[in-house]
């Protein structure tokens, strides 16, 4: 794979080979971190938001600029905006204040960040990333720090600092891996969220985040798909399903009185390989005769507001409950996604609840009460499917996935912002026969990010993405070598969008799947034709046309 925004894999391999066993890249003897320059070059920054996107969102300082410009055209009084904004957030978020105050710089987090492991840039050590802000914060809270700048590690707020923030808070995917290891529980994701809010106040931003946020606001989904197109696309998936299985599924749209509203990331409707996961959902719902509907208005599970500001997150998320109320459904079922589930699990009910117009979720097939979701009233599809399988409600033939040798990638947000590890594994083990875990330091709560989360999946950011994804790819390479694994199964739409590129770069021959795509492959549907191909129309092993034994 080559791309003007990334080194060739062999060049990057050479870089790693030369510096091993070191992780840091470059010489730092006798240097202080605050003297290291910030250099924007091809592949390490995302294009800024277009003026019309900012105007659409009523965000400040629309202009034409780029990160490589010398002058970023910050608005008049930007220092005051940042300082006041910081003070205001320190007041509203105890997390921010405590995380600014209680770091002891023990360095446990230093080599836990995928961006540090891949770039060797010292400012990508989570503790350093936070120091970029603490050094400014100290000036405001501590009189000694203002005088003894070098002694206390504090410094003045300059345009260089803003450039540095822009670079390094967009080299953090809010994956929270560092916070697992921090003895103080400091969560860099929280600090990154604060700084991105601050940067947005002065028009320092990322088009790959703000354009989807603006789209989502207007059309209901990140891709800006209008209702008729959204419906048509799903109907074309319905045709594809019929081609492969001979079964005609019939999803409904914006239907009042349905029992369940199903919401998934729009990537599942439009992007390869997400669409195959969507086909899996549709087959599953048909298989169990679920009374559900899909909304074209709340047609996005993901929430790029989360990478922008609290207010934007709330605004985009509000549509879910608003639509559920309008349609009069009993509860909401959510598809496979990472940060969507961080928002649903940890923010939605606080922001837009209480959801008293919904009922406590009960599986209409098994009668199971999802008591863990009794207030938010939204259930994760992996919980839902695991329950169905446990109660023997699905007819499954795991042999239909015998052409795949799988491993499972825990998505950061579902792992560390929700704590769901067992359900997807249970489902996976019931729908396929070959499953191997990656090494234990790279899965579950210690899982590595795909390197492109939190709105950094932009083409022009390829160098950092391939470096940031290196630890994940390295763990996949391990099981590829040891167990001949060729299929990386995920439950996240960003993973499905970003991991294929990462695999092409580091591990050619490994394909990325959604969990429910494999469920769809394995489901024995009533009235189906003889199955020979999986949902991608690839031949399944042991199901060849001429194999009459089957």
């Amino acid at each position: 794979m080559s791309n003007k925004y990334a080194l060739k894999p062999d060049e990057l391999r050479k870089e790693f080979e030369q510096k091993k066993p070191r992780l840091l890249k470059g010489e730092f003897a006798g240097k202080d971190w605050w003297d290291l320059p910030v250099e924007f070059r091809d592949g390490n920054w995302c294009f800024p938001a277009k003026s019309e996107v900012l105007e659409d969102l009523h965000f400040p300082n629309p202009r034409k600029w780029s990160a490589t410009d010398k002058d970023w055209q910050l608005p008049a009084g930007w220092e005051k905006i940042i300082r006041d904004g910081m003070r205001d957030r320190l007041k509203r978020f105890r997390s921010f204040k405590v995380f600014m105050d209680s770091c002891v710089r023990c360095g446990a987090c230093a080599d836990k960040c995928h961006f540090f492991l891949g770039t060797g840039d010292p400012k990508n050590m989570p503790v350093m990333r936070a120091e970029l802000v603490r050094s400014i914060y100290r000036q405001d809270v501590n009189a000694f720090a203002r005088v003894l700048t070098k002694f206390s590690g504090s410094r003045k707020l300059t345009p260089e600092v803003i450039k540095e923030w822009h670079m390094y808070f967009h080299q953090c995917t809010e994956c929270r891996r560092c916070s697992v290891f921090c003895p103080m529980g400091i969560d860099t994701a929280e600090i990154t969220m604060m700084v991105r809010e601050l940067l947005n106040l002065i028009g320092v931003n990322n088009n790959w985040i703000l354009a989807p946020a603006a789209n989502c606001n207007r059309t209901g989904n990140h891709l800006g798909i209008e209702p008729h197109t959204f419906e048509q696309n799903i109907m074309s998936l319905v045709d594809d399903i019929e081609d492969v299985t001979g079964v005609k599924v019939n999803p409904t749209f914006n239907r009042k009185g349905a029992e369940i509203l199903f919401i998934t990331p729009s990537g599942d409707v439009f992007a390869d390989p997400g669409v195959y996961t969507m086909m899996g959902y549709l087959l599953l719902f048909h298989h169990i005769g679920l009374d559900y509907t899909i909304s074209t208005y709340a047609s996005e599970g993901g929430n790029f507001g989360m990478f922008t500001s609290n207010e934007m997150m709330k605004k985009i998320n509000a549509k879910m409950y608003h639509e559920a109320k309008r349609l009069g459904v009993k509860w909401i079922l959510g598809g496979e996604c990472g940060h969507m589930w961080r928002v649903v699990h940890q923010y939605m009910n606080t922001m837009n609840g209480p959801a008293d117009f919904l009922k406590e979720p009960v599986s209409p097939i098994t009668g199971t009460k999802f008591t863990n979701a009794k207030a938010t009233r939204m259930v994760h599809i992996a919980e839902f499917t695991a329950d169905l399988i446990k109660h023997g409600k699905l007819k499954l033939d795991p042999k239909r996935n015998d052409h795949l040798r799988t491993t499972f990638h825990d998505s950061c947000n579902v792992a560390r912002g929700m704590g769901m590890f067992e359900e997807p594994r249970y489902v996976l083990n019931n729908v396929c026969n070959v499953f191997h875990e990656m090494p234990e330091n790279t899965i579950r709560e210690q899982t590595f990010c795909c390197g492109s989360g939190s709105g950094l999946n932009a083409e022009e950011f390829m160098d950092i993405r391939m470096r940031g994804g290196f630890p994940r790819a390295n763990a996949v390479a391990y099981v590829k070598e040891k167990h001949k694994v060729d299929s990386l199964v995920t439950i996240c739409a960003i993973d499905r969008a970003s991991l294929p590129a990462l695999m092409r770069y580091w591990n050619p021959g490994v394909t990325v799947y959604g969990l429910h795509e494999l469920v769809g492959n394995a489901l024995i549907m009533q009235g189906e034709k003889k199955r020979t191909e999986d949902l991608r129309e690839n031949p399944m092993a042991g199901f060849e046309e001429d194999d009459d034994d089957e």
Partner: protein
Amino acid sequence: MRKVLQPLLLVLVLALIPWVGVTWGKLDYLFGIIIPYTAVVILVLGMLWRLFDWSRRPVPFRIPTTCGQEQSLDWIKTNPIESPSNPFMAALRVLSEVLFFRSLFRNTKAELHGGQKLAYGSHKWLWLGGLAFHWSLLIIVIRHARFFMETLPMPIQMIDTFDSFLDVTVPAFYITDAIALAAITFLVVRRLSDEKMRLLSLSTDYFPLFLIGAIAAVGISMRYVTKVNIMPVKGLTMTLASFGFSVPEPVGALFYVHLFLVCVLLVYVPFSKLMHMGGIFMSPTRNLPNDSRAKRHVNPWNPDIKFRTYAEYEDEFREKMKKAGLPVEKQ
């Protein structure tokens, strides 16, 4: 190196102040009575202020870092500590952090091997060193109670006996003295020997280590080397314990160096990273239960946001929706 030498020098200068003050200035009253009281007042008020200052700030969202399986379907085994489902388990989680450094126990060391392979080795030295440092300091502080009480309560007596069970010197050698010095040395060497640590460490990371190291070193030399006369020391500490203001008997400059450095440490606590001893209890990623889908968490400043309603959406797309056969509210 400036980052390391400056704090070292600072500690030496601080140590000289009482030495000079007592030896030549006869300022025993200042260093024995006035400064200790002032330091304790600053410590107590400062810490109370910091704790109050944190706790008055709201926790708008429930954001535990989940390091284990959440409570979900009843046949799925949960991890009640790493994904606590109620406040009691969350409290246990915090306590396990405070008492045993649970998260630090997970620590690994990443290395790049040949063939571009990342390897993660178990790396418990930081955990062990940190735990040894903090626990031995705690025991040493508790042991000092014998200077401030006429009769020692049983538990403290036991700690003292246990700590000195080796009984190899006169007076009996305390194991924690050795552990504390060894741990401080390890923590300093660790910061100096790793290039990542050299880059991320600040002078304010070295300063408390040097300061505590100096306090320990002076204390140890008083006990085992110069063998300070204990009676006037106890006289002074008992005066302090009873909030008295009587003039101390001559004790010797070395003791005042010890005492003054302790006072500096006490004053330094509320204004520095040493407040992590309070911060660890306040960390929202650790002290909250992972129950936000089962129980609504309230944000006191939840803002009013105008979002795009379905009606606005349908107004824009109504004709297209009708054409596609999608149901609409208004014709």
